Every structure is written in structure tokens, then in C-alpha cells.
């Protein structure tokens, strides 16, 4: 097998989007919802499903659009691109929303459109639909970004299964924190990307 490389990445922090080719700033937004919407507009704003998603999935969706825009991921069969994601807060933002809807038994209004987002791996479903990806999905929860676990698992997956490429990373959202860091990992050479290492993932994750 060739070396594994990170052939593209996307980092989204509050007000900032960073890819290998550009750095976008959305300085005026203190409100997360508005920020996500502006990034969506920057991308052309044509994917209608975006409006149904919770903020966690919106964030994952936006990061995936930047990640895959410059990437020839379609050269792989759809079932050969895996996703290994992780975060700290699971689906807490939607969990709180669902909990609010059932807090008062006199005024009880649980909604399926909210409940379905109370699982962190729903973002993997959303990205699978958007980009037609049928590879294996894995979602880990860890207190902090753990590049070691993502690295180990991605390498094993690419070594011991049908998968030829993998989108790995971190997408975390709460009403105070927002961060997405996605990496596209595939076999390659120096010319197609930098060597896939936990250190490189950590370095990109730390970009400000």
C-alpha cells in the first residue's frame, strides 16, 4: 500500500473557515446560527436539506462541502469511502431541545424532527446522502480531540477492509463551542498531500 496522506482538510472555528487553499473570515457574527447560514450562503446556498438539519449537522455538512469541493473523492467507489468521526458533546444541543419538549407533561410536544437529531451519527447519515457515500461509519466520543484514536482506527480500517479512503475528524457543537475539523485520507505521494500522522491532524486542528 502507498503511504497514507491527508489530501485535503477543512477546519471551521467561530467566524473562520480554513482549507489548504483559503482562509475565510466571517467577523461580524457573534451568533452561531447566523454564522452557519453565512457560510452556507458563501457556498451558494442551494442544498435545501440544510434548513432541516440541527446545528451540529449543519456544521458537519458545511465542513464536508469545503473538504470535498477540491477533492476527487468520486474516483473511489461510493462504498469504499469510510467515515470515522468523533466529538465531545455527542448531540447535546438537540438533546436539550428534545428534553425541553417533554419537561412539562401538561404541555408535551416531542417532535420526530428534533428527536432524530439526538444521535451524533446522524451527521454521518446526512453526509452519506449528500455525497453518496456508502462506506462504513464510526462515531467515537472523547473528552477532547484525540488524533491518536482517529489515526489508529483509520489506518486499521484502510488496511483491513474494503475501504480505499476515509473522512476522519471531529465535529462538535454546543451553544458555547463550535468546531469542525475534517480530513480526507487516501493512499498517495508527497505531491498529493502531506503524510497522514496524528501530529499533522493535531496541528491542523490547532490552526487559529
Amino acid at each position, binding site marked *: 500500500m502507498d503511504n497514507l496522506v491527508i489530501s485535503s482538510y477543512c477546519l471551521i472555528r467561530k467566524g473562520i473557515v480554513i482549507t489548504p487553499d483559503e482562509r475565510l473570515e466571517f467577523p461580524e457574527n457573534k451568533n452561531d446560527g447566523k454564522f452557519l447560514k453565512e457560510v452556507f450562503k458563501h457556498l451558494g446556498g442551494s442544498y435545501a436539506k440544510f434548513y432541516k438539519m440541527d446545528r451540529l449537522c449543519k456544521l458537519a455538512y458545511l465542513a464536508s462541502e469545503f473538504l470535498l469541493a477540491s477533492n476527487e473523492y468520486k474516483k473511489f467507489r461510493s462504498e469504499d469511502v469510510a467515515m470515522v468521526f468523533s466529538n465531545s458533546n455527542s448531540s447535546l444541543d438537540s438533546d436539550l431541545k428534545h428534553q425541553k419538549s*417533554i419537561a412539562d407533561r401538561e404541555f408535551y410536544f416531542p417532535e*420526530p424532527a428534533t428527536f432524530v437529531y439526538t444521535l451524533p451519527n446522524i451527521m454521518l447519515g446526512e453526509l452519506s446522502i449528500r455525497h453518496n457515500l456508502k462506506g462504513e461509519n464510526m*462515531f467515537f466520543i472523547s473528552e477532547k480531540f484525540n488524533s491518536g484514536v482517529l489515526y489508529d482506527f483509520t489506518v486499521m480500517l484502510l488496511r*483491513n477492509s474494503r475501504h480505499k479512503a476515509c473522512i476522519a475528524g471531529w465535529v462538535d457543537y454546543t451553544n458555547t463551542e463550535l468546531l469542525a475539523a475534517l480530513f480526507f485520507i487516501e493512499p498517495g505521494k508527497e505531491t498529493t498531500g502531506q503524510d497522514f500522522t496524528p501530529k499533522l491532524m493535531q496541528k491542523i486542528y490547532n490552526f487559529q
Partner: protein
Amino acid sequence: MIRRRTYIAGDNIITSLGFTTGENFRNIACGITGVKAGKYEDIYPEEFPASLVDSSELLLRSRELNIDKDYTRFEQLIIHSIRGALANLPVTPSNLGTLIILSTTKGNVSSLKNNKGFPDDRIHLWKSAQVIGQYFNTIFAPLVVSNACVSGVLALIAAHRFIENDVFRNVIVCGCDELSEFIVSGFQSFFSLSKDVCMPFDKDRSGLSLGEGAGTVVLTGDKSICPHPLIEVIAGSGSNDANHISGPSRTGEGLYVAINEVLNGITDIDFISAHGTATAYNDDMESVAFSRCGLNPIPVNSYKGYIGHTLGAAGVIESIFCFETMRKNLLVKTFGFENPGTTEKLNVVDRNIARVTNRVLKTASGFGGSNAVILFEKSDG
């Protein structure tokens, strides 16, 4: 490169039907279900059928271990199950070569309603993992897999890969979910709960039954510590339908892809333990996927009628039922199934059948379009 083989060293199941694997399997082999209709005030305002772990029995057992005050009910279930699976095994969780993987969808989510005096950060799955790691003195914080209803099978697949690649010598996989108002109200809002005990693969099935529990499997690369007959993990795989976030693909695409990778040409399997939630869509989808793989003649069952859908624990608990099926050479009937009613015809196990069972396929499908499949094989070692 070394590729180690992965064997099953020990296991435990805690559900409404008992606190050991043996107790649980004896009950289901006798056709006893733990899914009971009732008015569970803490969990839902109206009467509904569910499979719940006996809380007073759990409390007694937790008092014996002195874990009744410092651990939530969810964490107590995990501790009891891991201890049960490790009993008499020379596997030490505190060893450098041992990893714990927790599989759960919602962990301590009931604490959003009432945290019972526990700190707020206990809502986080990683915090429960940390607390469990501290209890067992592990070197690494347990890894948490949270991938909806396929979490359990995925956690077993992850364990297999860690052992295969010699990253860890032993992996303890514990799947656990506690039933709560959060979960029940959500499924009710989808109108996906059955009014009675669920009826997998039946023409009159009308939805799923929910359950709770914990299941633990100790996987190892060390054959010498395993009981006989030996049970080995042969392969595992996952795939996404890329179709819908809350419903399965009508063509069973993801499940079809995952089964094909796992079987990789193997045709002689003896039994399939399906996901079999008893929703119209899920069971139809499975029948289509199995049919596309040419597996319709293989006996298939669902255990959901005995213990309900135990969410993050389901794949682990149902895999252990598969181990018992191989150990006892007994296919257990699908509780709730009477008349066939799926898109494609299946060979649903409708009575207990004594039959030599050497190779078993376990499948799971869930929200987010995810599917996971694992293949187990029995041998005399």
C-alpha cells in the same frame, strides 16, 4: 504483518430476564419474554410495553459492591456486566494490553430531567467512560462508540480490529443503554412503538418494543484462556445506505454491501440473528437485503420479542445470544412471529430447533442509515 485471530473469552447479559448470560438464555429458550405492558410513571405518562431491568435487584447487588451511591444506574449496569463477564478470567482491565469499549446511544441522558445529585458533566458519555475506567483502574480511558442502533456490532468490529492488528491483547466490549422518558417519548413521537409485545417479521407487526440492559463480551487474541467450544470473530463490516436519516433503504443497500464484504464468498452459514425491530420498514428492508445476498433459505430470527430493542446494547447482547446458540446448538424461536409478512420470503425460526450451529451472522441497522455485520464461527480449537 501479523494478523492475530480474535476469540471470545467471556460474556455477560443483564436484562429484565436476569443478571447472567445463562439465566437470560434459559428464559428465552423457554419462550419467556421480559417485555411487559405497564404504567412506568418515571418513564412515560401512559401505559406501554417495555423490558426493564429489575431495579430493586440491581440496587441490592450494587449495595453489595458498594457502588449504589457513587455511580448512576446506567454506570452500575456497566460495572455489574463487566464484572460478570470477567469472573474467573485471567484478564485484568488495569493491564496495559487491555482496552474497554463502551457502546451506548444515550448513556446518562435521564440526568437531563433529574441528575439525582450527580455533577452536571455526568451527562457526557466520555465522563461515564472515565468513571468506569477509574472503577476498573484502566490505563487508557475506555473508548466510547455511539453510532445509534449499530453501536454494539460496531464496537465488536472495532475490538476485532484492535486485536487483529495487535494494538491490544484483550478488549472488553460493554454495550449498555438505560430506558428513559427521553427515549420513549422520542420513539412515541415517531409512532414507531408497538402497543403490544413486538412481532418481528410478522404480517401484523406494528412497531418496536423498547428495552434496556447491558451486555459484555471479552475478546482476546489468547486462545488458551477461552472456554470450549471456541468462538472466533471471523470478519466485520459496516456500510451506510446513503438514503434516509430515519428510515432504511428499500433496497437494503447498506446491509447488502456489508454482508457481502463479511461473507466474502462464504455460503455455508447456519443462522442469522437479524436486527428484526418489528417496524414495517426495517423488517422488509432486511428481507430484501438477505434476499439480494441469496440468504433467504438460512434460518433467521430476531431476539427483540424477548428483551425489546436495547439500542446501544442490542448488538452486544444479541451477539452473546448467538454464542449461546452455537454452544447449545439451539436456534431460538422468534417471539411474536406467527405469520410471514415481509417483502421477500425469509426462513424465520418459528419454533426452537436443535441443530448443529457453527457459523452465525449477526446484523444491525439503525438511524443515520448505518448498518453493521459480524460473522462468528465455532470450532473445537
